[in-house]
């Protein structure tokens, strides 16, 4: 299997090195890991510095870019990863939940005058509910049907917003309130709790805190009974069902969790952005986030974060290429999938699954023995 041969293959020395680091990491004591976690959190907070900005984003404001697209994509990718990477369900309409969160913030904020924190809770509940409403009737469908149904759902949500004058129609909603500010707390010259218009950094810090909370939650789920059930479902749903795993219930749970993460991000994003309209929630965003998940290594949170970061950051960094950047991005996706179909940093468990079969995502039908690969016969038979 080509995916396993990376250790011995000289061309793949770099990946072997990465593997070595991951081996060390897997056996590192708890205190060392926590030190690294805390260090990463601090680094995340220090990212929006100007000196870094000149290198990372010479064409547009670095701190703004860090909030959107980079930070936003990262959180969305973590959420979609629960659905796609962990439970193995293909969702092509993830943007719908982001939209529901965004519209919750906009509507509850402007019409009912609730504050940001109240709406955050409401938005999460609403999008989780919409995940259940969508998942209820459709999760019994097989993989690819689910893909088109979710794609349809994403479009239904967007176009309904577009056609409904009561929620602004194509004009969307303007004058969305910001989170309540706490003034006067200054760290290194930044008013870290002042949610105004001009300085994007407070929003970015908020995002980092929300993202950290989400990562902790998702990690705990992954290691719990729920995570094991998801793994069983994505590896072989029928077998899992036979072994007494209530697959439908767990799939629905994955959908709801993914949806609520998307919704939470929608609320945070709308809290900064002043006005939203249906065109902020195009299918392209769903596809981009999915690309981020697969590119990074679906199922593995650090991988997914890396994937989202690259997908968001590269087009901003290379604004210099201007017109050609989307074209280059498209070609890069194809190339990456050809040379590293499992993603940049795949989860080790998924990698093992991939080595045996196809990691639950199903193989393409006509698997043919190639010069370097054995047929993934188990997957092909289905």
């Amino acid at each position: 299997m080509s995916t396993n041969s990376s250790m011995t293959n000289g061309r793949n020395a770099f990946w072997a090195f990465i593997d070595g680091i991951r081996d060390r990491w897997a056996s590192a004591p708890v205190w060392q890991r926590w030190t690294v976690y805390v260090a990463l959190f601090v680094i995340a907070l220090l990212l929006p510095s100007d000196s870094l900005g000149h290198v990372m984003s010479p064409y547009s404001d670095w701190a703004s870019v860090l909030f959107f697209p980079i930070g936003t994509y990262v959180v969305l990718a973590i959420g979609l990863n629960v659905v796609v990477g962990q439970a193995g369900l293909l969702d092509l309409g993830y943007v719908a939940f982001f939209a529901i969160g965004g519209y919750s913030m906009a509507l509850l904020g402007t019409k009912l005058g609730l504050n940001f924190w109240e709406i955050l809770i409401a938005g999460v509940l609403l999008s989780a509910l919409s995940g259940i409403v969508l998942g209820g009737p459709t999760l019994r469908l097989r993989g690819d049907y689910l893909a088109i149904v979710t794609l349809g759902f994403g479009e239904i949500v967007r176009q309904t917003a577009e056609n409904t004058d009561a929620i602004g129609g194509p004009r969307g909603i303007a004058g969305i309130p910001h989170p309540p500010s706490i003034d006067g707390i200054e760290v290194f010259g930044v008013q870290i709790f002042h949610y105004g218009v001009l300085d994007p950094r407070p929003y970015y810090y908020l995002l980092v805190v929300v993202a950290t909370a989400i990562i902790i939650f998702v990690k705990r789920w992954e290691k719990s009974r729920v995570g094991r059930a998801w793994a069983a479902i994505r590896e072989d749903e029928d077998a899992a069902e036979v072994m007494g795993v209530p697959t439908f219930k767990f799939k629905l749970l994955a959908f709801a969790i993914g949806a609520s993460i998307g919704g939470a991000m929608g609320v945070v994003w709308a809290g900064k952005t002043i006005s939203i309209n249906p065109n902020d929630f195009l299918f392209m965003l769903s596809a981009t986030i999915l690309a981020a998940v697969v590119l990074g290594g679906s199922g593995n949170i650090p991988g997914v974060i890396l994937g989202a970061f690259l997908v968001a950051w590269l087009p901003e960094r290379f604004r210099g290429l201007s017109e050609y950047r989307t074209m280059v991005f498209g070609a890069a996706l194809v190339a990456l999938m050809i040379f590293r179909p499992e993603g940049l940093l795949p989860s080790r468990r998924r990698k093992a699954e991939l080595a045996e079969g196809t990691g639950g995502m199903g193989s393409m039908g006509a698997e043919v023995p190639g010069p370097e690969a054995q047929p993934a016969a188990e997957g092909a038979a289905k």
Partner: protein
Amino acid sequence: MGDLSGENSGIVIPPSNGAQLAVDEYNATNPKVKLEMIKYDSKADPTTAVSLAQQAIKQDKVVALVGPAFSGESKQVGPLLEEAKIPSISASATAVALAQNGWKYWHRVVPNDGVQGPAIADFIVGAAAAKKVFVVDDKSEYGKGLGDAVRGQLKTKGATVTDDALDPAATDYSSTVTKIAAAKPDAIFFGGYYAGAGKLIKQLRDKGVTAKFFSADGSLDKGIIDSAGAAQAEGVLIGCPCRIPTAAETDEKVKKFATDYKAKFGADPLIYATEGYDAMTTFTKAIATGATTADAINAAIGKSDFDGITKHIKFDPNGEPSAKSIYMYEVKGGQIGLLGDTTTAKLG
């Protein structure tokens, strides 16, 4: 700032060129303070526009901004410029709501859709004497807003209004066309951009619907003739708050602008080119008075009172232009020609 490379760049490049021309002319007079124009390509995406505006304010330290070109991005960038106290003049953002935010540093040189829509509606019931009008919009922020403005005014004038919407990205408009054919209107108004307008006109004419077709600034582009076909587009009427130099130009000032523009960019000045020039001229005049800081420039703009190429430039306190003329254009023999001011123009 605006969409310099995206789908709607046809509406943004001409004013950007116009502005460039104004800057070059100003610098050619060897003033004390030379100006540098930096372009920001937002692709009409509001979020991108915000990041770019932040870059413009913090890194490039601009003192004034021509743009943003579209209303959607203006809505997002406006508060930012307001807090940074950077004056802006848009040559093409026409949404009504923009002027209602109380922004002090925001201006535009074109009358808004609340002026444009009713003026066209008046023309439809007046000069074109239509009683039954079918209004279609393209579900965009611009198209819907304009469509609603036209619908409202038509109703107050006593015309019967039926309506529908279409998706500009789609190609098959047969359901809309069938609906129009069934309603048998005297006139049709389309609120949206030219790509949608062109396809709609063609499919209407192919179905044998011959009612007069009206549209507005978003459709004022040669592309409308290209996609509809010259035969089908014949007689289409398009309103616009803009003044475009045409081949048969009589106004000396406009003529000179058209010649200079062509010499520099190798193309005829199109939609909002003159407005882009006027917007930039407003800044250069303000700067010529000795104002160099953003605040002083803003104060000077507020006092502007001069004849631009297309109109007298003077701003109301909310940033709206005082001159509110809407012009009507007609497609004839595959060319867009000026018919005149909507209040006075007659149908031939």
